[in-house]
């Protein structure tokens, strides 16, 4: 496969996100604009200008009408996808590290940083998915993380729960309506922050990536750890691929140590693991800095990764990717084919 390199940012990437159909790709970096790209050829659709600080996060609603972004300028902003117009700004006391729409795009959660006497919070905003509509100023819900600040968060299926990953390596489940804490489970090594949390397509389970060099597949309902993927480097991001049963992990040694090692030792590769068998099945190199974020194309045809080096690399998988099966998988397919024949 020949990756497409997107160099629309001057600084380290913080998040890349596909829209629901997988034709648009949004990227945020520590410079002050968001880029929208066509995923199939890497053409830049446009940029969203207005943030005054590093942008940490972006998310797009399911209809690809609006995007939300969270930034170190202490705001969450809402933009019209098509024109790049700023629709709404919400101010917060601290930086916003993560935003995510729920499944129907009517609610947006934001994770705010713990800083300057303010505790880390998860806020929920009601959103009208219409560029013309007046958005409400009020927060629908505020969850205060008293013990350990949340670093990432997301909506489970049917917006039933809010799942948050914390700085101490634990995962908590909050009620999606009331914001009450239901469970808090230590899944990762104590004290190693959770750096990413991404859902499978129906949002019944998710994958977390952590600095403790592992990624874990966890159910949304019981917070049960289903699978553990062990890597040899701190992880910054993890994604679940649709169509094929793989997960993609991205990481690399800490950005501050990068200049002291060669790219080969730095482990700046996207790692592919088999989702079920937890075995590493391949790596894709290319970045010359740690991977800060990976995203899987919802159509299952490709993936994108954003690195500390300021590049986004968009990959379209080859045939070999789709053909690979474990022995047991192949047997099952053969059996199914035989049954179908009868």
């Amino acid at each position, binding site marked *: 496969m020949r990756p*497409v*390199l997107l*160099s629309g940012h001057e600084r380290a990437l913080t998040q890349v996100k596909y829209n629901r159909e997988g034709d648009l790709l949004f990227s945020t970096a520590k410079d002050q604009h968001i880029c929208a790209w066509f995923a199939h050829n890497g053409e830049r659709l446009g*940029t969203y200008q207005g943030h005054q600080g590093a942008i940490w996060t972006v998310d797009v609603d399911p209809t690809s009408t609006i995007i939300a972004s969270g930034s170190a300028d202490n705001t969450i902003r809402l933009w019209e996808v098509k024109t*790049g117009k700023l629709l709404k700004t919400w101010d917060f006391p601290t930086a916003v590290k993560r935003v995510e729409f729920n499944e129907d795009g009517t609610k947006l959660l934001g994770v705010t940083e713990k800083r300057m006497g303010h505790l880390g919070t998860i806020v929920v905003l009601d959103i009208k998915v219409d560029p013309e509509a007046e958005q409400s100023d009020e927060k629908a819900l505020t969850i205060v993380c008293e013990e350990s600040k949340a670093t990432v968060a997301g909506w489970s299926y049917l917006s039933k729960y809010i799942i948050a990953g914390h700085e101490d390596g634990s995962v908590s489940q909050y009620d999606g309506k009331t914001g009450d804490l239901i469970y808090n489970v230590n899944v990762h090594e104590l004290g190693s922050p959770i750096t990413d949390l991404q859902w499978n397509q129906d949002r019944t389970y998710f994958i977390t990536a952590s600095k403790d060099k592992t990624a874990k597949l966890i159910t949304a309902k019981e917070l049960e750890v289903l699978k553990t993927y062990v890597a040899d480097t701190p992880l910054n991001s993890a994604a679940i691929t649709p169509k094929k049963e793989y997960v993609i992990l991205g990481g690399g040694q800490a950005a501050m140590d990068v200049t002291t090692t060669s790219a080969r030792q730095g482990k700046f590769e996207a790692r592919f693991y088999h989702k079920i068998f937890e075995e590493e*099945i391949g790596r894709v190199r290319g970045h010359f800095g740690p991977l800060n974020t990976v995203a899987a194309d919802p159509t299952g045809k490709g993936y994108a990764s954003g690195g500390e080096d300021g590049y986004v690399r968009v990959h379209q998988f080859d045939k070999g*990717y789709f053909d690979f099966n474990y022995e047991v998988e192949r047997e099952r397919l053969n059996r199914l084919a035989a049954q179908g024949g009868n």
Partner: protein
Amino acid sequence: MAAQAKHDWADDDDLDELATVDLPPPQKIQNKDGSTTIIEYRYNDQNQKVKTTRRIRYITHREVVNPRVAERKSWAKFGQSAKDPAGPAPDTTSVGENIIFRPSINWRKDAKDESKDPNAQAMKDKLKDKKVKCRICHGEHFTARCPYKDTMAPIGEDAGADVGGMGDESGAAAGAGGAGAPGAGKKGSYVPPALRGAGGAAGAGAGERMGGKYGERDDLATLRVTNVSEMAEENELRDMFERFGRVTRVFLAKDRDTGLAKGFAFISFADRGDAVKACAKMDGFGFRHLILRVEFAKKAA
């Protein structure tokens, strides 16, 4: 008219002179095989006329997409891309080098095959008969960098090596006779490495070795094991050889980059008798799909 009067020679742009007067117009030729040849002319930085010939074949690739996706493709660009023409802009989008990604259970092994890309192959072909070969262990490195330069004699220098080996008992005396004689006389005076061995009666012919800390090793009880599987680990070897007596040292040569064994190892025994036993028993022993070859290590000169 005022504007013209203001015109300064310094404002003259080179481009004006180079106006495309004498450039032939771009040509488009439709080829028989369906491709199009486009010939364009321009001036480069050195004012040289440059002819660019491009042959393009248009392939129509039909794809059925969601109508919403199709609609989005017609959106106007905005923000920093507002002025970009249709299609990917070269300043933001480029195509990377081809990456072979084929998931596999033993991908580590496959990754190595991938390094056989045409470039590396071309380089290899060029260096085919210029192979770096160590005189001591026949490994693919320079003799000076051989890890065994102090434990083994270069191949073909056995005679000298044996003499040295015999003298080992008497310790430094023989060593000094062989290597350090001129230096011993005038302590502290510098003797260039090239001259250090020259006065030696043993005639080993070698200068002082680098990394002399290995020089004292007892090579009488050291075995050289070759044809070792590349998956082998040092402690496996130690376990195998410890059956014959106390093993003082196991050295398994490993590739610095891959961490895989290079196929040979050295085992030092505390007692020479044990080493003889081990040598007899283990030569021809099947270990990890390979048959070991065990022999006594040759003493370094």
